[in-house]
């Protein structure tokens, strides 16, 4: 009976789903994953330590939440205040700074607000707000979003009005929106360089140290979640601060541009 054949084939498919290997899970932010650095690091980590790191690519808020719930074994994010609060709640063992990259301002190629000629990042934002030029905000509570809000605050501006569009989405989707609207947007450099749908957008402002973006690694607290794989998490940390990691991180380029700067301190 052909019907039976179909059924048994389908059942075999279900059973095949069940098997899976022992791995370690780490939640990271979308911007890190989009940078492409993970694709370079993960195979090396596996080679050197034998650990198969599975990445959960989510926003900063969700990345920390996954750690707090014990659904991952470590987190790698870039939002210092949130990280410290997370640690204070007993979710992790400690915080280890690994590297930084930077944020940039992207906007229409003719730069109607003249943000590119600003001396400081805050000045560039003031120029955009003053011109009421369209500006796309992630609006998703991500590290990038929080950085953007800090900058507005530092500039003494409360962004609101028709020109300010919070999309509540990831970096890629937000860039797509900005590209469609020909609007200004703050992005991490990696996401921008990798972004394929640039349209009329270009990089308009960069370089202010306030835009530097520190990545920190935090293992999940095994006292809170006994199943958390602290041994693998520690081994991964040891690798992340090693000379091998420094070499790979500092050596990683995208379109000829260096993206990350290794700054982990030896203990």
């Amino acid at each position, binding site marked *: *009976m052909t019907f039976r054949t*179909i059924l048994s084939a389908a059942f075999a*498919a279900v059973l095949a789903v069940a098997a899976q290997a022992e791995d370690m899970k780490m939640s990271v932010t979308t911007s890190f994953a989009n940078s492409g650095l993970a694709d370079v690091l993960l195979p090396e980590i596996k080679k050197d330590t034998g650990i198969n790191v*599975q990445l959960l690519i989510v926003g900063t808020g969700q990345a920390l939440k996954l750690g707090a719930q014990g659904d991952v074994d470590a987190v790698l994010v870039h939002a210092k205040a949130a990280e410290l609060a997370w640690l204070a709640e007993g979710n992790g063992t400690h915080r280890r700074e690994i590297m930084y990259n930077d944020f940039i301002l992207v906007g229409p190629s003719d730069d109607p607000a003249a943000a590119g000629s600003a001396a400081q990042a805050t000045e560039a934002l003031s120029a955009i707000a003053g011109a009421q030029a369209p500006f796309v905000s992630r609006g998703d509570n991500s590290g990038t979003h929080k950085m953007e809000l800090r900058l507005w605050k530092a500039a003494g501006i409360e962004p609101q009005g028709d020109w300010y569009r919070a999309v509540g989405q990831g970096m890629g989707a937000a860039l797509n929106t900005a590209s469609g609207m020909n609007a200004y947007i703050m992005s991490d450099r990696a996401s921008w360089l990798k972004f394929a749908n640039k349209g009329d957008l270009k990089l308009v402002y960069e370089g202010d140290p306030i835009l530097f973006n520190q990545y920190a690694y935090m293992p999940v607290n095994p006292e809170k979640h006994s199943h958390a794989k602290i041994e693998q998490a520690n081994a991964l940390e040891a690798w992340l601060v090693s000379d091998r990691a420094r070499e790979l991180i500092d050596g990683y380029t995208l379109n000829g541009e260096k993206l990350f700067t290794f700054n982990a301190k030896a203990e």
Partner: protein
Amino acid sequence: MNDILQGLARAAKLVVTLNADLVEITLLSLQVSLGAAVIGSAIGLPLGAWLAINRFPARRTVIALLNALMGLPPVVVGLIVYVLFSRSGPLGVLGLLFTPTAMVIAQVIIITPIIASVAHQAIRELWADYHDLLISLEARRHQRIATLLWDGRRALMTASLAGFGRGIGEVGAIMIVGGNIDHATRVLTTAIALETGKGEFDMALALGFVLIGLAIAVNLALHILSRTERGSRW
């Protein structure tokens, strides 16, 4: 338009060269959604048949509930399954979160109401035809259900395929409970979402075309297989 053409070209290239990543995520898509369709059918088809032939006080309520569940947003299902299977949730000890099994569970919840509802419609008509005969022959309750399921199998296959179609194209729930982990839980739809996020529209479209092709292939395969049964028009 250009994007679409580029996407088609890229899809063709990926398929022709049997790109290893593509094969992997396509197979996982198939496994998860076929698995969900099989389990959803095992629950939904008898449930639909049972609702069609039984009269009980809460029947209308159950059917209304079923129809309401059909419109359940996958993201909500994903969230509920996530909360249940999170390490901090009631079923956390099973360690199923971010595994294909969790994805199958989420999809089963999404597609079972659809399968049951379509099956209910089909079986109700068949039951109207068969009623007198089955009562006269004193078929027992489970025999009635078995007979209706077997003789209505063509229509029920449509129900299962509808469930499969909804599952294979679903992204909201499996993104949350699967996590879209490379080489572990990445399937066609989550890969498409990822590529779209990167602005890689032609790659996203290519995967989209593969997804459409896959859905068509599965439908055709089932119809051809079931038509090989001789002498039957249903």
